[in-house]
């Protein structure tokens, strides 16, 4: 009998360390980039302001200090929850960003759930009847779904709805109807990709002897698929789905938010960039990095849990 817990903690520790490195790297990168170029002071003072006045303002914001000092200050503050002051909105950057977070989370959660469920159903259906009309239809649709940029799909949906369907709003936030179109636009790519992997994964598993063995014991096809195949096919599916979720969080939601004026973190990033609002830009990157890293970590956990070899040594 093998011991259960030698492999697991070491594995998780490595992943945790990883995550920290990624967050730090992301933040450093953005910090360097935003502090090397761009001068927020320019926007705050009228054009006639003298160089002296600009310099004074920079001083007051601590922008004339050496970069490392600024970074040190930033990290110190960040660890206390203070991510700086949004020069654009005159509020703590942390507040600005966190205020927008729920909208993005809602959109991504909604799109991801739709993708996953649709893909599991469609992919399995296609895999159980390979080469059939249903399979070809599903495969073609996935292929097309993967080839459409989400902002274009979003715009086409807007066009379609504006002209034909009443009742589905194309901008804004608030009711569930507002969620429909953005979800569809964001989900298409992921649905296509996950369907493909579900299909190929299930086809691979169905050809394995343990499936024949299970059926030979009297399990029906339905039972075999749900209780035997899916669990084994799960590993590549979970891994890929995780990456799709990360993809959504890491930036694919930005164009969708832009098209639908969805008040989330993505739209905020674009606005902040236009306004040269360093604090908010940094805060957004930090937040997104944390989200991405968390999701990746959870995927690793799931993977370890699904694979008996890792879980039970």
């Amino acid at each position, binding site marked *: 009998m093998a011991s259960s817990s030698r492999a697991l903690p070491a594995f998780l520790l490595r992943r945790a360390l990883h995550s920290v490195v990624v967050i730090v790297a992301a933040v450093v990168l953005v910090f360097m980039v935003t502090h090397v170029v761009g001068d927020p002071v320019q926007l705050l003072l009228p054009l006639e302001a003298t160089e002296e006045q600009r310099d004074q303002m920079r001083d007051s914001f601590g922008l004339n200090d050496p970069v490392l000092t600024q970074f040190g200050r930033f990290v110190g503050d960040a660890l206390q929850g203070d991510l700086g002051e949004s020069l654009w909105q005159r509020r703590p950057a942390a507040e600005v960003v966190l205020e927008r977070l729920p909208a993005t989370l809602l959109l991504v959660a909604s799109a991801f759930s739709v993708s996953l469920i649709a893909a599991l159903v469609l992919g399995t259906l296609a895999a159980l009847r390979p080469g059939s009309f249903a399979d070809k239809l599903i495969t073609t649709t996935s292929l097309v779904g993967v080839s459409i*940029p989400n902002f274009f799909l979003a715009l086409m949906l807007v066009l379609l709805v504006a002209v034909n369907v009443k009742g589905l709003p194309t901008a804004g936030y608030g009711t569930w109807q507002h969620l429909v179109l953005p979800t569809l636009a964001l989900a298409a790519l992921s649905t296509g990709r996950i369907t493909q992997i579900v299909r190929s994964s299930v086809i691979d598993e169905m050809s394995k002897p343990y499936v024949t063995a299970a059926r030979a014991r009297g399990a029906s096809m339905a039972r075999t698929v749900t209780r035997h195949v899916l669990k084994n096919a799960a590993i590549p599916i979970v891994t890929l789905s995780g990456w799709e979720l990360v993809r959504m969080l890491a930036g694919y939601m930005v164009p969708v938010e832009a098209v639908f004026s969805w008040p989330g973190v993505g739209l905020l990033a674009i606005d902040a960039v236009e306004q040269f609002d360093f604090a908010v830009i940094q805060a957004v990157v930090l937040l997104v990095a944390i989200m991405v890293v968390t999701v990746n970590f959870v995927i690793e956990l799931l993977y370890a849990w699904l694979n008996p070899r890792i879980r039970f040594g």
Partner: protein
Amino acid sequence: MTAVTPEPTSPGLERVIDAAEYRDRRLARAGRMVRSEKLAIAALLTSGFMILIAIAAPVIAPHDPAAQDILQRLRPPAWSEGGDWSHVLGTDQLGRDVLSRLLYGARMSLFIAFASVLVAVSIGVVMGMLSGYIGRWVDSVIMELADIFASFPGILVAIIVLSVFNPSIWLIIAVLGIEGWMIQARMVRGQVKALRETEFVEAARAVGAGPVRIMRKQLLPNIMAALLTLAVLELARLIIAESILSFLGLGVQSPDSSWGLMIGEGRDYITTAWWVVAFPGLAIVLTVLSLNLVSSWLRTATDPFLRHGKGAS
């Protein structure tokens, strides 16, 4: 009378084939398979067509893509009411010819995508070779690096980098290339690890060839097929990535043209002038779709050989 005995063959004496023959056998087989896949041929032709018009744009474009003509603004395509054949696909909000912008957009978008793939492949191949061939700590370091890069919220960071610095073409290429090397590296590493122990590499080593020479002459030709398959896939992905950036205003800038930029600029007019957005969008979808098809066909055409190792034919 004695029984018929089979011809004596020495079981261990397989022919040692070299890298060139291995590759030739596979190309011949791939060639034979082209004829049997009509969809793949259509996809190949479509991608080829797109590349062709991109290259030929300066020659075949009817107008200067940047030429504005306010009197002609928002003219519909030639076949609709109000359109005329001097502007086959209509004009945009500044009176620029859509067809010409589409052609030059193809040129720009494809150029950026190709160049980015080249960057990603170059970095990826080098990293992958080093990682796979040398192994040990070099391998660990490179793989950790790849993991970290992969966990990065790449798109978001790209957005920020490009918004802070002036979005020149080369910067776009650099950013897109750098965020994509990991997947090539991982694949190359896998291949190299598998090939490292094969006979022709052993033979080359025995003759005294140094690692660089082996990498160049023995390993590289054999991973070409897999590399090509992946490169085509990445090309498709990068076309979409560039279009997202340009759509958000952070990629190609006016008066230059890119498919994503066209969509971004035409966004406000979508309900009144659908053609400004639809044509570039369609172009993206067609190109990406055919590239995806070509890539998946390439994978089936070349994979069995890689799986069986030594030139099974």
